[in-house]
């Protein structure tokens, strides 16, 4: 292939050309807008260089919402293609690209950053800290994720998208069967984002272990912090496996190594194994923080403390360990011995036990509680029955003998959406609403939010429950069309209607944000939900230093005790506060990573070498830099606190 022809889209269509124009126009509008309103400096000094965990959390949130839109469009396109038999909306190549990017974008660039957004924003507040252990590294994590995601996304207009599925199994993902650069984007985009995620794991584990407020022992941590701790440990153990797998995949594609080839001793199943040794823990990296969020929301809106705290912690730790011993269940049909399948069947089914314990704990938390049906609580209540259905079908899939019937059918697709959407998506949407006033200082409109919830829930049921039936009847996943004689038509039409309702709910979610920015009152109290943990003890929105005085923790629900049981939260006087300095380093480093990644995708070696040198120069610069941070003086703290009405109001 010629040098320039590689940059062209292999299978262009009017949709892609119009998207190119749309992207170009949007970028132009952003640049013109920033220049016109003189916001470049604001953007640089306030956001691009920030090391504040709250701002980084908000940037994660915005990226996640953008990616939710991108992945959602993919989803609607797929459902539209399958809505009627023998549809010609998408051709097979385009359909392959759409389901591949839908999977990657939703898991790695929507769900992960959404979880990271909440971890970044909430965890330091919940443990009474002023920032994470390594604020600069935190910014590096965010920007690496962001650049990895952008690199992955431009594949769609430059060179073509990955088309080997989100699992990219070899030999399909090898050069022979995927000759265009799409899969290079997959390997390198995810690699860059994955390095960022690994750094986040290290950062949060250190933060939670070392920076808790005085009195907060491990068994007095709020449940979301516990889930962030366990998740960080899983990240640290799981992500290096992905790093190695992606390096091998990249080398197979760029340097013709023989890891996963069909010749010269290569072993395609090695990829499948490595991918799922990371991939299965990855789904717990998503779901455990989601469980943690539900464990914050449900007690608040039931006005009861969390039932079974110790068993909640124990089951999370148990799940985190077991998550590394189940990966083979993703390919029961791919040639292991029967006894191997049996062992992994059993380990997989065992996971249902701790998960079941957690479900019962949430139910017992609500039992005899005074439940308020707010938007976050609706998501939590909707989660329990829907997630249980997903869990039960998961146990069905875990039976290796029966899996020969389910494997790679729509039944599987229905199952994993049935756990991820009510599990992760409901959690992040509910928690997004719950923490919105802490982030932005105003509440989201409840009425529109409830409409969005019902559209999402009903749309979800309509979209995915029919797939269980068509899957059992033999409709394979990733098939771009089917004939009328299969009889799958009507059920797929119902799925399409469900997908359309879910799309409407997304529009409603965006509308509720817009509406609330315009109309919501700005004078919400610091604790609008009458909540129980420390993040609500500070002001709304949170000042730069989080807490003027570090809180004293006496129990699992310190803030509740401070409000109703006379616990003294803030003792002592103001002292000057040490804060980290902002830095452009992380952003610049990540931009260079982007260029380096792009050069690798297209094998432009001189640019790749320049990029690599640039990365090392950034690291060397960081090594020699002297940065002691800065202090916020007592006068400044008094001034800020006075604006918020003083610190000691919870005494």
């Amino acid at each position, binding site marked *: 292939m010629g040098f320039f022809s590689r940059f062209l889209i292999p299978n262009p269509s009017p949709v892609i050309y119009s998207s190119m124009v749309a992207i170009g126009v949007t970028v132009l509008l952003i640049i013109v807008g920033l220049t016109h309103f003189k916001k470049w400096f604001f953007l640089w000094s306030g956001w691009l260089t920030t090391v504040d965990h709250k701002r980084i959390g908000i940037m994660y949130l915005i990226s996640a919402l953008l990616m939710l839109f991108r992945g959602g469009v993919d989803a609607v396109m797929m459902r539209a293609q399958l809505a009627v038999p023998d549809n010609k909306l998408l051709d097979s190549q385009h359909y392959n690209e759409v389901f591949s990017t839908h999977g990657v974008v939703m898991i790695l660039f929507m769900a992960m950053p959404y979880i990271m957004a909440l971890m970044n924003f909430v965890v330091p507040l919940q443990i009474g800290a002023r920032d994470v*252990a*390594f604020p600069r590294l935190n910014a590096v994590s965010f920007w690496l994720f962001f650049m990895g995601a952008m690199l992955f996304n431009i594949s769609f207009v430059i060179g073509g998208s990955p088309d080997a599925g989100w699992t990219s199994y070899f030999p399909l993902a090898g050069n022979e069967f995927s000759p265009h650069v799409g899969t290079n984007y997959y390997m390198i985009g995810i690699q860059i984002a994955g390095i960022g995620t*690994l750094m986040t*794991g*290290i*950062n949060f*584990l*250190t933060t939670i*272990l*070392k*920076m808790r407020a005085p009195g907060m022992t491990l068994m007095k941590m709020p449940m979301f912090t516990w889930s962030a701790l366990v998740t960080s440990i899983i990240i*640290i*153990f*799981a*992500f*290096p*496996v992905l*790093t*190695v*797998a992606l*390096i*091998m995949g990249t*080398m197979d594609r760029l*340097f*013709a*190594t*023989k*890891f996963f*080839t069909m*010749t*010269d*001793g*290569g*072993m395609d199943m*090695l990829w499948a194994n*490595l991918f799922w*040794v990371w991939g299965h823990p990855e789904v717990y990296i998503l779901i455990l923080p989601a469980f943690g969020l539900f464990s914050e929301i449900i007690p608040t809106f039931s006005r009861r403390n969390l039932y079974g705290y110790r068993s909640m912690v124990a089951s999370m730790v148990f799940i985190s360990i077991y998550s590394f011993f189940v990966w083979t269940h993703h390919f029961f049909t791919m040639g292991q011995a029967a006894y191997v399948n049996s062992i992994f069947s059993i380990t997989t089914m065992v996971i249902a036990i701790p998960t079941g314990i957690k479900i019962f704990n949430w139910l017992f938390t609500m039992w005899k509680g005074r439940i308020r049906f707010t938007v976050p609580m609706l998501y939590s209540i909707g989660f329990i029955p829907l997630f249980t259905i997903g869990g039960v079908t998961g146990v069905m899939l875990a039976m290796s003998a029966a899996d020969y019937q389910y494997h790679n059918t729509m039944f599987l697709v229905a199952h994993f959406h049935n756990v991820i959407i009510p599990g992760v998506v409901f959690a992040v949407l509910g928690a997004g609403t719950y923490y919105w006033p802490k982030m932005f200082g105003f509440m989201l409109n409840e009425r529109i939010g409830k409409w969005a919830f019902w559209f999402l829930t009903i749309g979800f049921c309509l979209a995915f429950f029919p797939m269980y039936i068509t899957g059992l009847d033999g409709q394979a996943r990733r098939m771009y069309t089917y004939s009328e004689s299969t009889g799958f038509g009507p059920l797929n039409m119902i799925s399409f209607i469900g997908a359309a309702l879910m799309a409407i709910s997304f529009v409603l979610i965006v509308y509720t944000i817009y509406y609330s920015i315009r109309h919501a009152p700005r004078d919400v109290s610091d604790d609008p939900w009458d909540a129980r943990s420390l993040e609500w003890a500070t002001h709304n929105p949170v000042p730069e230093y989080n807490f003027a005085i570090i809180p004293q923790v006496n129990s699992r629900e310190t803030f509740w005790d401070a409000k109703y049981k006379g616990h003294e939260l803030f003792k002592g006087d103001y002292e000057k506060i*040490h804060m980290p300095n902002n830095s452009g380093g992380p952003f610049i480093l990540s931009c260079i990573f982007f260029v380096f990644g792009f050069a690798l995708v297209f094998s432009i070696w001189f640019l790749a070498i320049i990029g690599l040198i640039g990365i*090392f120069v950034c690291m*060397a610069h960081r*090594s*020699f830099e*002297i940065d*002691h941070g800065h202090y916020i003086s007592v006068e400044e703290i008094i001034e800020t606190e006075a604006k918020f009405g003083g610190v000691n109001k919870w005494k």
Partner: protein
Amino acid sequence: MEIDHSQPLEYSTEQNRLNILGFWIFLGAEIMLFATLFASYFTLVDRTGNGPAGAELFEITPVLAETFLLLTSSFVIGLGIHAMRIGNKKAMLTFFVITLLLGLGFIGFEITEFITYYREGATLQTSAFTSILFTTLGTHGAHVTLGLFWGLFIILQVKKRGLTPETANKSFIFSLYWHFLDIVWIFIFTFIYMKGMT
């Protein structure tokens, strides 16, 4: 920065203690990285295709030299940290320079070894076995190379700024990294070379 004088210099501030714990956790991730490489190596070791097997490639002399150089360097950097603890900057710098020179010698031997393999017809593309062999050794070698630059930067900083809580912290963390690479090498020596030669 509050400095706690009851602690060694590298542990004396809160940020220093965070850095050291964070780096231990990072080493945990590095263990997973090398564990994955080793697991893949064991999977692919007999899949040599038309290329040579380990027993045909490996020679004991250069490998012993590499082992000797790297293990000695690990001991010397330990002496360097000891010198740092008793506040002897000059001795510390000398030991660090020796460490890096030994590391450089290791890299030199490794490169000649790679060239020999290449001449004997074992390239990155020959077979699954040679791919994983070069990748595992190369990942370790790249870590050592990165360490050479990192160590050099630290020597320059200690020389210029003296032994402060920051430079002591960096030196200590670098020594952790260097010991870790040594431990990985012991596994490479045992499970790739020794096992491969028999």
